[in-house]
């Protein structure tokens, strides 16, 4: 695993988490370049099919970022994200995909440093787990 650089696809919502990600930049909280970000309107709009597709196309990990529960810009979107993500994670675990590869986090505007920290943490966790072998 010496030269393994995990690839993380991050779906981040247009509202709280976008501001959180931005804050990281403003505060100078750096995070590894292993994360490639894709903006969506709501964490609830991230379809399980899209998550699976991300893994199939080479992601070693997928991170979904949304507003804190109760603060969703669309009221209930992030609850949908939570329910779908947990059910998908349980199904993928049966399929042999480690839990740690799929993560859902709530990020607010004030949590730039926390966001940067969790990306670093996830990168190291994936480095430890190794490249994803579960998809053709």
């Amino acid at each position, binding site marked *: 695993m010496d030269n393994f650089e995990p690839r993380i696809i991050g779906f981040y919502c247009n509202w709280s988490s976008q501001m959180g990600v931005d804050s990281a930049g403003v505060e100078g909280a750096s995070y590894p370049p292993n994360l490639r970000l894709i903006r969506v309107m709501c964490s609830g709009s991230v379809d*399980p099919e899209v998550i699976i597709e991300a893994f199939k196309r080479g992601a070693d990990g997928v991170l979904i970022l949304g507003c804190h529960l109760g603060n969703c810009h669309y009221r209930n979107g992030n609850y949908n994200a939570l329910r779908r993500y947990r059910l998908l994670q349980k199904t993928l675990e049966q399929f042999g995909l480690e839990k740690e590869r799929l993560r859902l986090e709530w990020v607010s505007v004030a949590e730039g440093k926390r966001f940067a920290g969790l990306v670093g943490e996830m990168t190291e966790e994936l480095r430890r787990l190794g490249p994803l072998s579960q998809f053709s």
Partner: protein
Amino acid sequence: MGKLKFAIYWGAACGGCDVAVLDTHEKILDIVAAADILFWPVAMDFKYRDVEEMADKNIDVCLFSGAVRNSENEHIAHLLREKSKVLVALGACAQLGGIPGLANEKKRQDILDFVYHGSPSTVSQKGVYPQEKTRVPEGELKLPKFYDAVMALDQVADVDYYVPGCPPEPARILEVVNAIVTGNLPPKGAVVGALDKALCDSCPRKREEKKVKAFYRPQEILFDPERCFLEQGLICLGPATRGGCSDPPRCIRSNMPCEGCYGPPPDVTDQGAKMLSAVGSIIDSQDPEQIEKVIDGIVDPLGTFYRFGLPASALRKKRFL
């Protein structure tokens, strides 16, 4: 129109699709006013050699049921594709991988170990496994290679049409044959004899509101035979399954939830992912702990959401390092 030349074959199959063809009760022959069946192992004594000796495109329609599990299934799929004008994937196994596709959750060697040695009812002979080539005093015997993964027919050959179902309805098989005979061919790659909407659209059950506080296994509750299964907490694959099996839908009218045998509706690549997304969104809770509990009530999500379509899904096959 002259006699239509048919071939009906099975890969890793159970014979149910062949029975569905038989269940057309000679109507299939009425339509073509006497058809020539050139190859049909369940019912007629033609050999692979007979197919090999045919000219290319000699067969007008080949109905191929069963999944591709081993090299013989693949070889015959290629052979029949060569010798046939139209290749139809008949049934869930040919279209999606079907029930045999559940083997994709297991390691190939584990399957062989259990079947030939581990199973309680097998007399295990030490070290004996099926071999592709076996030397015997008189010569050599051959067996096909057991693949790592089950595949759907279109993963090894170019398929013209799909007739879904496990088993397909005899009336639908007649429809596809009729379409071919009369030249009213649907676009290539079409799923024939099915609707273009999800099953829910043709479901007769009462639907009120989808807010579920718990999921149950069918034996755990007494459920209302008139109301939507999902609303009562029973997983029904209706929302992510193509409609058209029967009116009313077969399993629904037998008071059992839809299993998803017709495969995904149009424009859905992964039936299982779509279904679990739908199930996730009807969970009536905003408390993460409660949500967790509700999800715990769904035992075997892989076998429930991907029962018929694992090989054709985005997941396809579990990999083992």
